[in-house]
């Protein structure tokens, strides 16, 4: 078949991606958008299989696709809802590495077949190979660090280690220097294109850059980082497209690169952070403050008493709810209140509650909490002064009043004004600091009752106490 026809296949695939991405941004059309994206990918793969003439060499390629598909599907099906953000980070790293590996393979192919291009072609190919390697490997190691940070730690020889957050201020010039060195290396590879050692040096340097870029960033900012890395992995795919002059790689890669960057800014805005600050000023968990104040814990019966006859209760879920998987108990709790006292129950959703935007929505959806009861922060805040009680379940930083003070790592982050409610119940395992490493005054207020314990256990006990009261 004529090569023009394959171009039509790639064009079709690119169109699917464009409409898919567009539809993913609206709640009603999002599932269709995702399917369109998958259809676009299928179109691209079928086209390239026809182009490479599968009859010639089916085994290796089919094997590669089968292995990858099995691993990918297994990971996607097996993952718990709480583990999804980490998985996205991991997939993202793989995508970046794949682009970089394709670029490396092209470099090897040219050198091994002693068919090194010259002139303009050499410049374009080797700049693209270099940039693809830089961005791709940086995305891989950065994503792996983000993965470990989202998990909270990693296993070494069966021992659990906490992910460190380490970022002295002198690391910033080092980041800039390494990036500069990487560009010099790319320039040097053009001078001696047959020297693969330079390429390997570039790969090593890129891996280091990825690590030192993400390591100083605190866990609370990880969603933004993963989104940025997602954008970078798109850019890496686009650079790879330049090497093999493939239109669909260029289009899909730059689409993801650009829209990923926009999404990163949208997320930054939701957290009231600037991308520059996220990347260059370390935030969160640097030095965990030691907690010196104390608060006497309450018990479920006492809380049930407070809730007796309440007219309005607002539930504020956080990562603790995700960890203990107590969304069903939370739903039961809301149903109980509604039945018994006719209480109006609403859920206050902070844009970054949990480890990812939308984390809470997905979990509560699983417990079939009605959509219209999930209220976003800006809309729920004016309602809090009317609430008889705010029930905070495993949330901390997203309702820490210190954010209003304009000092410390949480400064300026919009919060849910839980402290305006008539009484506050906080379910939490201890008084320890949250992700951002800042003590929370809310815990020590007179109207606050602390229920120390695992979310699921405490919610179950609370439900029993309400039934019995």
């Amino acid at each position, binding site marked *: 078949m004529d090569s023009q026809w394959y171009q039509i296949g790639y064009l079709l695939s690119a169109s699917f991606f464009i409409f898919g991405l567009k539809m*993913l941004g609206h*709640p009603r059309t999002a599932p269709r958008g995702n399917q369109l994206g998958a259809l676009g990918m299928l179109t691209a793969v079928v086209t390239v299989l026809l182009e490479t003439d599968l009859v010639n060499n089916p085994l290796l390629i089919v094997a590669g696709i089968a292995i990858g598909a099995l691993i990918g599907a297994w990971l996607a099906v097996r993952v718990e809802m709480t583990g999804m953000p980490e998985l996205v980070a991991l997939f993202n790293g793989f995508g970046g590495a*794949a682009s970089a*590996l*394709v670029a490396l393979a092209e470099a090897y*192919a040219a050198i091994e077949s002693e068919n090194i291009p010259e002139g303009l*072609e050499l410049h*374009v190919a080797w700049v693209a190979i270099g940039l693809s390697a830089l961005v791709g490997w940086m995305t891989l190691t950065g994503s792996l660090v983000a993965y470990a940070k989202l998990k909270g730690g990693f296993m070494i020889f069966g021992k659990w280690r906490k992910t460190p957050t380490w970022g002295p201020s002198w690391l910033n010039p080092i980041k800039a220097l390494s990036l500069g060195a990487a560009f010099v290396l790319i320039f040097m590879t053009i001078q001696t294109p047959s020297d693969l050692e330079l390429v390997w040096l570039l790969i090593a340097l890129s891996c280091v850059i990825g690590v030192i870029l993400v390591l100083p960033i605190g866990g609370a900012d990880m969603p933004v980082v993963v*989104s940025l890395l997602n954008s970078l992995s798109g850019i890496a795919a686009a650079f790879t497209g330049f090497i093999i002059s493939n239109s669909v790689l260029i289009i899909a890669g730059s689409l993801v690169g650009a829209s990923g960057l926009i*999404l990163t800014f949208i997320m930054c805005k939701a957290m009231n952070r600037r991308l520059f600050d996220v990347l260059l000023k370390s935030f969160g968990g640097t030095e965990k403050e030691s907690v010196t104040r104390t608060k006497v814990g309450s018990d479920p019966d006492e809380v049930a008493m407070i809730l007796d006859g309440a007219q309005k209760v607002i539930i504020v879920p956080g990562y603790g709810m995700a960890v203990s998987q107590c969304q069903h108990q939370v739903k039961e709790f809301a149903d109980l209140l509604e039945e018994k006292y006719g209480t109006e129950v609403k859920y206050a959703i902070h844009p970054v509650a949990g480890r990812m935007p939308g984390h809470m929505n997905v979990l509560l959806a699983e417990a079939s909490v009605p959509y219209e009861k999930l209220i976003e922060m800006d809309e729920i805040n004016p309602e809090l002064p009317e609430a008889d009680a705010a029930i905070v379940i495993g949330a901390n930083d997203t309702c820490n009043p210190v954010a209003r003070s304009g000092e410390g790592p949480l400064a300026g982050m919009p919060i849910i004004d839980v402290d305006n409610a008539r009484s506050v119940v906080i379910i939490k395992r201890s008084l320890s600091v949250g992700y951002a490493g800042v003590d929370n005054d809310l815990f020590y207020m007179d109207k606050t009752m602390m229920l120390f314990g695992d979310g699921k256990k405490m919610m179950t006990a609370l439900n029993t106490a309400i039934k019995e009261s």
Partner: protein
Amino acid sequence: MEPATLIGSLTLFALAIFLGFELITKVPPTLHTPLMSGANAISGISIVGAILGANVLYDSGHTEISGVIAFFALILATINVVGGFAVTNRMLQMIAGRRKRGGD
């Protein structure tokens, strides 16, 4: 590579970047994670490059290493693509399920 090919590639690159900037506006927070995950699956498009690269192995006997590298790229890209779309689908289904049950 002809200069014309390069210009063509650069044109695609620039236009797609502009399009990408315009494509995403005002996304509700619920969709931030699914959108990121779906876009991430699309960036697995390097699967096409990996298939082309792995194919070289058979075209000439000189390029075995590049074929092996491309083979690993193919596995990683497929994980990204299949896993990415599947996980996005799971997230969206939960949201859709909620709408169905939650809608009056």
